């Protein structure tokens, strides 16, 4: 982020923005906006002056500045008439957030960078701001790079997610792609709960789908399994496991309910398979509660939702 903005110099390699190398260009010539984690609102300037700062630095005429400031403040729902004269110390966290955004957008940057600016907000406000930020970004049609550790913000806001682990890119794709088809264990667990089941052996059914034997049952995985006949891990998201009181037709697993829990609209249960492996499930159905802890239950994986872990 700091490298893209020009605040730090890369020790090697090249940074291209829209196909043009920006190496060696000082930050104030790049026209790249950056919304800081700390927001970095100038404490000695009013809201209006904060937002006007970038335009003033570019030598824009006063009348045009006032107009533009009013425009962007409207965009972030902080009407200039009410908030323009306020000092940063008189604003709430969410409002400061909006000022930071307005200040960055005022200069019409070709690219906007967000360095986890919502990390300090409480969850509800963060979700709300995420939606709003996304709609503003879409309406202005400006390219944006958003860095976050919060996978929900990431999924909710982006067209494309780049997942990095220890400084290296591990997967790139749409939010659905990386959620449904994570490339490795890190990506899978980063984006939410994931069951990893150790497979016994792999068989091939007549219709060409792949069946994996786990404990005393089996399930069908969506991927091609080339050259591997035994072992490996299968990934299933908890919401893709269906609980059934009767043995299903076709492939399925069975186990005993070891724990159930209700929270925010979902029943979460933990099922212990015959070989001791545990499966987390998440469902709007109260099947597990009705059966009770200790009862035997069958698991069916929704079609195409189980995948082999490649590495």
């Amino acid at each position, binding site marked *: 982020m700091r490298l893209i903005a020009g605040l730090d110099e890369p020790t090697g390699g090249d940074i291209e923005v829209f196909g043009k190398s920006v190496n060696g260009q000082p930050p104030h010539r*790049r026209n790249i906006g*950056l919304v800081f984690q700390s927001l*970095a609102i*100038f*404490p000695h300037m009013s809201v209006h002056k904060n937002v006007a700062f*970038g335009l003033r*630095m*570019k030598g824009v005429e006063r009348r045009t500045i006032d107009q533009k400031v009013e425009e962007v403040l409207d965009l972030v729902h902080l009407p200039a008439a009410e908030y323009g004269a306020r000092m940063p110390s008189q604003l709430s966290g969410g409002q400061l957030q909006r000022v930071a955004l307005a200040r960055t957008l005022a*200069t019409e940057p070709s690219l906007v960078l967000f360095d986890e600016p919502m990390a300090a907000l409480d969850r509800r406000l963060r979700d709300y701001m995420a939606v709003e930020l996304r709609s503003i970004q879409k309406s202005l049609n400006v390219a944006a790079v958003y860095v976050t550790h919060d996978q929900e913000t990431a999924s909710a806001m982006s067209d494309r997610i780049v997942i990095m682990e220890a400084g290296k890119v591990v997967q790139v794709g749409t939010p659905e792609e990386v959620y449904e088809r994570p490339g490795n264990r890190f990506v899978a667990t980063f984006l939410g709960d994931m069951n990893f089941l150790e497979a016994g052996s792999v068989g091939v059914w007549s219709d060409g789908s792949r069946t994996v034997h786990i404990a005393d049952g089996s399930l069908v995985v969506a991927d091609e399994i080339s050259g591997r006949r035994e072992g490996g891990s299968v990934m299933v998201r908890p919401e893709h496991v269906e609980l059934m009181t009767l043995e299903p037709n076709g492939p399925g697993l069975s186990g005993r309910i070891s724990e159930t829990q209700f929270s925010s609209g979902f029943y979460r249960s933990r099922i212990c398979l015959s070989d001791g492996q545990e499966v987390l499930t998440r469902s709007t159905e109260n099947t597990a509660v009705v059966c009770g802890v200790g009862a035997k239950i069958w698991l069916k994986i929704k079609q195409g939702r189980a995948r082999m872990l490649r590495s």
Partner: protein
Amino acid sequence: MDENTSIGRAGVEATVIKALTWFLLLLLLLPIAMVLAMSFTSVTTLQFPPPELSLRWYADVWSMVSDEQNDFTRLRESFETSFVIAAATSLVCLVAGVPASYALVRFRFLGHRVVEELLLSVPIIFPTVVLGVALLVIVSMSGLDLGIFQIVVAHSIIGLPFMMRNCVAALHGIDPSLQEAAKTLGASSIRAFTEIILPLIRGGMSSGVLLVFILSFNEFTLSYFLYTIDVFPLSIWLFQQSNTSFSPAIFAVSSLMIVINIAVILIVDKAFGTQKAAR
């Protein structure tokens, strides 16, 4: 029994501490109070307490200051000299101290800790008499007549650490991302400094200037080594007068100096409270 003893001991301790505090306060304030009291005396002799109160010595000082013909006492000239020296010293310390403090806080160069310690403490613990002798030697060896500036330079040496202490403290309180934000918004490094850093350390700079001004205005030791007939600070004038003609007028002048000092402190404190300066 034990409890009683400990309470008794605590009571004794509190009494002793109270007595010591009052004693020290008295020790600090008594000479000043005496100077103030003596300045209102009605007689030419140094009697304490003054037999009668009057403003005759203030009138005397006023005539010394306002009378253009009165070359001999040179009070007005001395006052102006001290004022110019203090103002110039403040300016020098401000211009040198702010960038130096900024460099110390923002840049991590080799040995910056040592430089910081040296700059901030050595001029304070270094004996001014020694510094005075050294400067006198340098001035006389070089044969340069820098006029008023030789005292300005001397005062700047002892004033700079006071300036820098305040600026460094103020700079430490500033989030470095503010400057970076300014840069990404199109400000060059220099503009980011003048638009963001300078306004935010205004409090530190003002209290630094205040301290240096008062320090220089009252300074005696270095001035004593470096004054000349043409550059004759107020502190030297007072010293000279007290040695030659010990008239109560010098108490009036001293009282006025105290009033000036207090006024400067009050004005600056009012404008940029200590809270703001610390930020």
